[in-house]
């Protein structure tokens, strides 16, 4: 297991190198001078030159790249031009918000998705199956931010059950946190819920058609025991694969959901940086998000072997 984990991490190294190169090179996509793009049009040439120097843009490309790699290898993601502080600290400060949002959305999507998918597979072809699949497809087709706005409108403004936005840390008030995070987590998880339930259903349908399930049925086990003990464990590999993809979707979705619900997370940091062209923050957070995503995928690969001993690690 340890050998496989190390090997899997080693395989990721070239990708990681490219990921950091892409994160760095994004500044070169700006037409013209990035420093001038950050400053107002009325900025003096001296101010532009000073910022160019601050960003290191006055150096040749290879030197800029070397200094970027040098910095990130020391865990330094650079300094924000706008916030005048370290990008790493800015991300870490906001991380708990995004993590709590994404993990709640993930838990919700995975648990409900598996439940809905299993139910649909057990009632294959019946109206339960059809309505679950219609809902799942609808979940995939609704823009998440629009769903968030509609939920605010219905549950926060209309019924007054939840606040319309903002964030309370769970260390301050758990109930306050829960009230702030439920609607965003639901809006964020809805699409992923649809995705997971569709995948679970098809994986379960395949498993339920196999001989060992017929044997379990034939020896008189109740249907629920057959599904829980023999069905679900054997359908877990494709479900986990999807959960890995879902993690990426959640990270992306959090960008806009945090915006809708005014949650002070990493997503809002990134959108703010993108709109104000705070390049070091954009570069640093791109790298950070990609690192998180790659690590999730490594964990997913390791999980295959944990849930299914038939998967050989080599």
């Amino acid at each position, binding site marked *: 297991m340890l050998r496989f984990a190390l090997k899997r991490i080693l395989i990721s190294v070239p990708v990681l190198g*490219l990921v950091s190169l*892409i994160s760095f090179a*994004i500044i070169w996509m700006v037409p013209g001078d990035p420093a001038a793009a950050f400053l107002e049009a009325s900025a003096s040439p001296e101010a532009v030159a000073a910022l160019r120097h601050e960003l290191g843009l006055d150096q040749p490309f290879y030197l800029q790249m070397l200094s970027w790699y040098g910095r990130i290898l020391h865990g330094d993601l650079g300094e924000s031009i706008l916030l005048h502080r370290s990008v790493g600290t800015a991300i870490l400060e906001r991380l708990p918000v995004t993590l709590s949002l994404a993990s709640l959305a993930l838990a919700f999507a995975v648990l409900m998705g598996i439940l809905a998918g299993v139910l649909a597979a057990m009632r294959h072809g019946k109206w339960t199956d059809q309505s679950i699949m219609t809902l799942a497809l609808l979940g995939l087709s609704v823009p998440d931010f*629009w769903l968030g706005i509609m939920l605010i409108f219905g549950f926060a403004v209309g019924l007054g059950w939840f606040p319309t936005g903002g964030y309370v840390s769970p260390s301050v008030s758990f109930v306050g946190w829960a009230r702030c995070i439920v609607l965003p987590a639901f809006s964020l998880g809805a699409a992923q819920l649809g995705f997971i339930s569709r995948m679970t259903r098809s994986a379960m349908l395949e498993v339920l058609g196999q001989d060992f399930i017929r044997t379990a049925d034939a020896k008189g086990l109740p249907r629920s025991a057959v599904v829980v003990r023999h069905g679900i464990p054997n359908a877990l590999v494709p479900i986990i694969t999807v959960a890995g993809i879902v993690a*990426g979707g959640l990270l992306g979705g959090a960008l806009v959901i945090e915006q809708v619900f005014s949650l002070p997370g990493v997503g809002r940091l990134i959108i703010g940086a993108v709109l104000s062209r705070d390049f070091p923050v954009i570069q640093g957070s791109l790298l950070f998000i990609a690192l998180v995503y790659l690590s999730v995928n490594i964990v997913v690969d390791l999980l295959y072997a944990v849930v299914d001993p038939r998967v050989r690690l080599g």
Partner: protein
Amino acid sequence: MDSAAHTLEFEGGWLRAALRFIMPTVRRLLGNRSFTIGASLVVFVLLVACFANVLAPYDPVRSNFRLRLQPPGAGHWFGTDHFGRDLLSRVIYGGRLSMEIGLMAVLATGVFGTAIGAVAGYFSSLDGVLMRLMDALMAFPTILVAIVVSAMLGASVTNVIIALAVATTPHTARIVRSSVLVTREMQYVEAARALGAGDFRLLFGHVLLNALAPLIVRLTYVFAIAILAEAVLSYVGVGPPPPAPTFGNIIAGEREFMLTAPWAMIFPGLAIIVAVLGLNLLGDGLRDALDPRMRI
């Protein structure tokens, strides 16, 4: 098999032969409920987009401040926005631009995804480099790539299309590549090679044809992703600039008036759902009929 092919050729030439291949697929498609519902929805949305100038009752960008934020009623079925513009007309025209953006993104993704995937799958020497690059791009969430690229290039319709294409190409390339990898080793390709076909002809005449089914399915989903992503880009402020309406920027422009005029956000959102639902259903139907291996 051989004799069957000969009879085909003698009986009616290539057209009949092609029809014999296509007809069962068409029949399977028409018998598939996802496909028929999805195709109807998509055709409906496309027709509305095409005939926007005939169907829209008002000019979508002309403001009339006396009619600000009117609720849905007889004169304005979807109500009006905060500039007093007719929302039904804006949604109809917005559909046109959103569909154009989506289609162009699909085209760009189709071309680049196929080219990269085909080259990577067919020429093993380039596989490693190209696919590591695609892997690296896929390490960023799709929507993040689209937002950052669009913002860095500067908000315009063309740049939004570029951003969407950059965001959706890597996955498309991967799908084409895996098809090519399988097909490349097949006997009929080997036979064609033995007959003296060059790499170009083998790739485009034989190998890529087999990647067509998964590619079409993927591009249908890319279309859906592009429409959703355009809306997100507009919402966060890096989408196609106003006043030209798209589904996304109608919603984005009205968010301050959510409490007083919720209809201004509800209708464009519903329009997105209809378009995306149609495309998702169409994609599911195509997948089941064209490519049973991808069936979920």
